[in-house]
């Protein structure tokens, strides 16, 4: 069963796989299979309906139905006023969105890729993140910046950078990185309802992956709190902490290691900032071994931050081995398939690191 789940999560679209293999068992009627893409769209749709002040803007979000079809159908339903196609002018439309937020609206800005958000970084940081503080509490900025972040197959260096560490660095921002469909839906709804600037890092690889959505998650008020991690898999021997699409790799690796009797505890961070260190520390105190796994670059990355905090916190004295990071290779992303594959953590890399850490 775990193996089947892992096929689903690693991106091969095998929706009916569960049904085919165990045909004598049917899914409970309330549980649905929903792709991450559709979960995001549901969240947007529900929040647009709920609050008049919410509106979407970005390139191709309206007529084209989204570069990755995330916003399909929304323009037909809500019209020009609430779903706005922008020209290709990131710094301009980000500034406009932040200004609209200052004046009381609740914009959701889509970046076709977070790589393009680099043009707008000044507005995200200087106009959005810092304003509530600089104004002594006079001027809040309720805004969400969302879009695909990090690796995507074959897009090469300028379109594959992970920005989790960049945005995670900044006080005044909340940074969210969902993995599953439930994560995406619950966290995006929370982000839109949050009165502060939230950077919502999706991932293109995950868009088409279906997940089971519980009955609870289908409610229009289903929210996942920002700042709380989730334990996707319980284990006693080693803690794997990850976020976004790499969680799938960790789950796959955990399945492989389980055959050797090594039980991994896989923590899905869900939020980069504020990070749920408590969940990580509790786990480390139990397993006594820690490996962080991410797709981003190693220097000054998410893993680096986790390890530093473990050093400074109660978890350190429980470690039986140095905590290590598994990251993307410290290079711009290459194009050729074989090179690209070897630039991101694979199942074998995680398995190898676990065995090294556990000295087996």
């Amino acid at each position, binding site marked *: 069963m775990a193996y089947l789940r892992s096929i689903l999560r690693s991106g091969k679209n095998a929706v009916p796989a569960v049904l085919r293999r165990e045909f004598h068992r049917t899914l409970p009627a309330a549980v649905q299979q929903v792709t991450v893409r559709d979960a995001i769209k549901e969240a947007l749709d529900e929040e647009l309906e709920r609050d008049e002040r919410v509106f979407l803007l970005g390139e191709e979000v309206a007529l084209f139905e989204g570069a990755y079809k995330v916003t399909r159908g929304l323009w037909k339903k809500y019209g020009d006023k609430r779903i706005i196609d922008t020209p290709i002018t990131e710094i301009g439309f980000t*500034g*406009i969105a932040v200004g609209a937020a200052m*004046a009381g609206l609740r914009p959701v800005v889509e970046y076709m890729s977070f790589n393009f958000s680099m043009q707008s970084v000044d507005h995200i940081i200087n106009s959005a993140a810092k304003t*509530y*503080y*600089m104004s002594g509490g006079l*001027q809040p900025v309720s805004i969400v910046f969302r879009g695909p972040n990090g690796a995507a197959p074959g897009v090469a260096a300028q379109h594959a950078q992970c920005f989790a560490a960049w945005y995670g660095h900044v*006080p005044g921002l909340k940074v969210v990185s969902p993995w599953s469909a439930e994560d995406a839906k619950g966290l995006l709804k929370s982000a839109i309802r949050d009165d502060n600037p939230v950077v919502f890092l999706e991932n293109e690889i995950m868009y088409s992956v279906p997940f089971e959505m519980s009955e609870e998650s289908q409610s229009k008020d289903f929210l996942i709190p920002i700042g709380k991690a989730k334990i996707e898999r319980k284990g006693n021997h080693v803690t794997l902490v990850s976020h976004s699409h790499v969680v799938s790799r960790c789950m796959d690796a955990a399945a492989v290691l389980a055959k050797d009797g090594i039980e991994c505890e896989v923590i899905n961070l869900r939020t980069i900032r504020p990070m749920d260190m408590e969940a990580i520390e509790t786990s480390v105190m139990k397993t006594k071994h820690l490996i962080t796994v991410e797709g981003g670059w190693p220097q000054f990355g998410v893993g680096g931050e986790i390890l530093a905090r473990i050093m*400074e916190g109660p978890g350190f004295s429980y470690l039986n081995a140095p905590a290590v990071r598994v990251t993307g290779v410290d290079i711009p992303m290459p194009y050729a398939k074989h090179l690209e594959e070897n630039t991101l953590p694979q199942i074998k890399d995680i398995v190898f690191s676990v065995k090294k850490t556990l000295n087996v």
Partner: protein
Amino acid sequence: MRKMLTIISNVLRGSASRNGARLVVSARTYADFTPQASFDIKNCDVHKLEEGPPLQAVLTREEGLQYYRTMQTIRRMELKADQLYKQKIIRGFCHLYDGQEACAVGIEAGIKRSDHLITAYRAHGYTYTRGGTVREIMAELTGRRGGIAKGKGGSMHMYTKHFYGGNGIVGAQVPLGAGVALACKYLGKNELCVCLYGDGAANQGQIFETYNMASLWKLPCIFICENNQYGMGTSVERAAASTDYYKRGDFIPGLRVDGMDVLCVREATKFAAEHCKSGKGPILMELLTYRYHGHSMSDPGVSYRTREEIQEVRSKSDPITLLKDRMLSNNMVSVEELKEIDVEVRKEIEDAAQFATTDPEPPLEELCNHIFYNEPPMKVRGISPWIKLKSVS
């Protein structure tokens, strides 16, 4: 009777002199002062417009006194800030507005308090015209708890209702302002947003991106370029391939306005506001103005321009003197009355400065507050792992 008097006064006016109407007879007088007068104002160069603002402005005694008082308050406040900066009581950046008062006051006179405004870092004057008190402004400059931003922002980050600062990044305020205008249109409130920027910022790419979107979406936005001839130490000829800033909006209609004449600025602003609110979309105004101080307090302001130039502007085009002369020569006010206002303004500034220097700084316990809005209290990492700080919304 009134109509006849107006006709008579029009005839008597003769050649258009800057100080306007020679004679206006009023039917009712109060303390022998002229209750209102009509003044000729400079013609505005226009771009993609059939006509510009009117060539005459009517000024009532009340308006005149109010504009005078406001401009004088801004002037004195900025000079006091200069003093406090030299005494090292104000630190960091301090960009002074003296010389440009007619812009802030004229614009405010042309819009409603319910309209919106955003500007860059030379913002003390606008913070005042948009409702901040001199006390709160000065206390913010000195970084005290009574400051308008509780001492957390400083010179460049002051906010009031419908005033979005005070922005430190050159040009960033322009798309922000267009965003405010988008919100005005979205919410259907018939309000507009005035987006100010300087001649230095006018070359910024994001401003052109904003012109495009504001025009495409017909946002109720008045873009205003305060051209004080110098972007920091670089004169306009050395920075811009085209110094016709009112034309730089290309497809956006524009006007070039005498920014030293508060009436000219007011009439142009009213004209622009009318354009915006009638749904025609954005409009651009260039205000020709001048700053007496250097770019900021660390700039003496004479390495890139001559003292003679500064003196000449002071003696020939000072906005406060211009208004004063007009009012006096039309018997709208007496010298004593203006002197009285000066004394009151001086006192207000002194009191504010006193407050700004004696009010305590914000308490250390509040260091981490106001990171997030509407959020339960949270922990903040301190300087070392043992220091645990708290942040409250």
